[in-house]
């Protein structure tokens, strides 16, 4: 078998494909690898759409994230009387996932000004948990319920005629889809790719997270804070259109991306954060961007004790001393954990925040935790930064990093 090729990141056009192990494990990279003139052109985000507990559209979501205003409230969509926790970030009505996904894809395509012909050429990458109906369908009818079938239905309804793929990799499903979509565009396999993701709070996952004692017991998500007690679920549906630079107007750019694994545990992240740190460094290197150019990190920040500590360790490992200065927040503190869709909501919030020139607030903070020595965004803040990272981690030690750049 061939081995990993070691490129000189300062000169290679495909900088970022492989990092030397010595640099992966060293204390942080602080200098740009390449001059801006040699950086590969970012993949453009040409259109975006979102649904969250704040309502339909990206505006309400962005406003709440920038203000640090959480949406958690008592769940009235289904019976939670037997649950330890009874709170989530939900829309006031009971929307249907398929309809919301179709509307979001249509809205993102319209935002990107895609013609019908352009839609017919576009692949759809969908991130969902699956079809929740499979657990209640008669055995003979279960074969009609799958994530893949949902993806096919959405593609058909929205006139997307390219290849269709459904991602089910839990909390990195959507971010993995974005990374794959960016790679498809970068390597010339597609001109435009639509990525969509959706999770709407429903009784089965709520019961599972409650049984696993993963839900916050005090009604708030407090990422990286002392006294944090866990996560809370939230509604989230999103769609983005990625395309080659120059093919469309650019709302934001995806400059770098990476997917890595911990190889550590079934559900716990590696406490040293090595896998997530490797994702950060690979994304930066792929973009030819130095750690000192990153002006904001939208962290995975689930609000659970072990996950937040591991992520803080990852940021220290990836950024070195810069980790004490780079602004960090987790927008799950306002919109909640939307499972397979959360990383797409977080990408959209980060892109819009860079466009607006303001940083999202890390809500719910009670006080510092010595295991999380980060520079948290605790109040609304203006910014002129160009590069923002969104990080995500999932059960099974799956990690992703997406580096966004303001247009």
């Amino acid at each position, binding site marked *: *078998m*061939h*081995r*990993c090729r070691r490129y000189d990141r300062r000169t290679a056009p495909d900088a*970022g*494909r*492989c990092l030397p*192990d010595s640099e992966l494990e060293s204390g942080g990279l602080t200098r740009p690898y390449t001059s801006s003139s040699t950086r590969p052109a970012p993949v453009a985000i040409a259109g975006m759409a979102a649904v969250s507990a704040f309502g339909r559209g990206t505006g309400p979501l962005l406003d709440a994230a920038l203000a640090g205003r959480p949406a958690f409230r008592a769940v009235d969509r289904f*019976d939670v009387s*037997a649950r330890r926790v009874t709170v989530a970030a939900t829309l006031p009505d009971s929307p249907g996932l398929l309809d919301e996904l179709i509307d979001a894809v249509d809205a993102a395509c319209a935002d990107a000004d895609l013609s019908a012909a352009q839609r017919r050429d576009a692949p759809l990458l969908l991130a969902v948990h*699956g079809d929740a109906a*499979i*657990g*209640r369908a008669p*055995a*003979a009818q*279960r*074969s009609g*319920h*799958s994530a*893949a079938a949902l*993806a096919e239905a959405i593609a058909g309804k929205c006139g997307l005629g390219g290849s*269709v*793929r*459904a*991602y*089910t*990799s*839990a909390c*990195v*499903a959507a971010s*993995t889809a974005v*990374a*794959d979509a960016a*790679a498809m565009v970068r*390597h010339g396999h597609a001109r435009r790719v639509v990525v969509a993701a959706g999770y709407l709070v429903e009784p*089965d*996952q709520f*019961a*599972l997270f*409650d*049984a*696993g*004692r*993963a839900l916050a017991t005090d009604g708030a998500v407090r990422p990286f804070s002392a006294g944090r007690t866990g996560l809370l679920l939230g509604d989230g549906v999103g769609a983005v259109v990625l395309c080659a630079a120059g093919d469309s107007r650019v709302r934001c750019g995806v400059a770098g991306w990476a*997917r*890595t*694994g*911990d*190889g*550590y*545990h*079934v*559900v716990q992240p590696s406490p040293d954060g090595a896998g997530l740190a490797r994702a950060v460094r*690979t994304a930066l290197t792929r973009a030819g961007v130095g750690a000192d150019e990153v002006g904001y990190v939208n962290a995975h920040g689930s609000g659970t004790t072990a996950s937040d500590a591991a992520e803080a360790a990852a940021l220290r490992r990836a950024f070195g001393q810069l980790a004490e200065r780079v602004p960090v927040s987790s927008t799950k503190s306002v919109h909640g954990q939307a499972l397979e869709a959360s990383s797409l909501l977080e990408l959209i919030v980060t892109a819009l925040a860079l466009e607006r020139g303001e940083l999202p607030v890390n809500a719910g903070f009670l006080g510092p935790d010595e295991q999380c020595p980060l520079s948290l965004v605790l109040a609304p803040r203006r910014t002129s930064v160009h590069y923002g990272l969104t990080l995500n981690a*999932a*059960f*099974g*030690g*799956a990690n992703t990093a997406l580096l966004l750049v303001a247009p």
Partner: protein
Amino acid sequence: MTGLAVICRAAWPESTEDGPAPPLPGFVYSTFSPLVAAVADRCLARSHASPPADPARGPRTATVLVSRYGDVTSAVLVAEAVDAGRRVAPLLFYQAVPNAVAGYLTARWGLTGPVVCVSPVGDAMTEGMAVAAGLIEDGDADEALIVAVEQAMGSGVDSASAVLVGAG
């Protein structure tokens, strides 16, 4: 897209001597995760003998889990408990997503490449190969373990197959 070369492959069952996949500690009630672990072990052992994987290859090996329907047994158990107003068994939380068993096998074999789970529209192994080819072309992995698994629905039998691939 990068061409792929098959390094080794495995299935479960491969013969009538293969019964149900061996139980997997921490995973309960469902055959899904034990099947994934059994076929992955069998495939990886044909290239790496015993765990952990060759340290020159394991860190650059991705894990791609392909299942159109996922863990149907667990989904049905959760729905039944919820509809009956019962509490859900806590261990079901940990196997609620396909990533979980991927965490088991990647920890056991020292695989630290990407972990990707997909529900295929068409042929499962073809879709897994496409995902793997993309990861290898993009540089996030040199090799990929692809596991395709489906539980029996109706009169069929559980089945799983695995392929370890690298750039062709």
